[in-house]
């Protein structure tokens, strides 16, 4: 806890490991939400969910 975290530096981008992990996790969660099947998502006769 007392040691500074690792930083990544590519060109003008400078980001800490924790921030990179959070952003990476958010992108992964967003991608999963797009493809993961949602329960009861079939279309009913009236255009609503069943």
């Amino acid at each position, binding site marked *: 806890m007392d040691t500074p975290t690792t930083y990544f530096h590519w060109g003008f981008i400078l980001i800490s490991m924790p921030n990179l992990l*959070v952003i990476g996790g*958010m992108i992964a*969660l*967003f991608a*999963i*939400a*797009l493809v*993961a099947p*949602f329960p*009861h*998502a*079939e*279309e*009913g006769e009236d*255009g*609503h*969910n069943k």
Partner: protein
Amino acid sequence: MATTSSAEGAVATPESKSWTLRLRQTIDRHLPMDHLLPDRQPYYVGSWVYVFGVVTIAALVWVIVSGVVLSFMGPQWWHDSRVGRFFNSLHFWSVQLFFIFMVLHLWGQYFMAGWRHGRAATWMIGVVIFAVSILTAFTGYLSQQNFDSQFIAVNAKDAMNAAGAGAFFNVLNFGQMYGLHVMLLPIGVTILVVAHIVMVRTRGVVKPIDPEGGAQP
């Protein structure tokens, strides 16, 4: 009274002076209960992307509940007692979840162009909620009453002064930051979130972009 107002059969006429009746009928016309509390949604709402907004609201509820407890008990309690530190952490981590899911909700709405078909005001209120939430979180970091909050305040004061905001927004003034954090800004966020939800309920969820015709304005 120009009209008699029984509970069921009241009708507002042009000469009606009953503002409660006119208000009630306006609400009924623009926001009927089947819009406010729907039990079914269009089939395209069946995606986890639509859950991000709800999780954001759930996180906000925990932020407010834990924040009320913290404000009631005070800094001594949230630093020195085990239960206090638990509520301090509960407040902090629910804020992290609030921002994470708010940004995921923003991404989802951006890529589906959620401002289409008369929903521009809903989108713009969402942007304002984001901005006010950042200000609320900033004043929260300044209200921790520890070395971290002192470090942030001392470093932030120069930016505030350079921006010309230091005269009325003094980050070194704990009373001002704490007052803004526990009173004005949370009330602002809550009112804006309620308005945002009501507008979503009024117009419903935006239709998916037509792959043939592209996004309609």
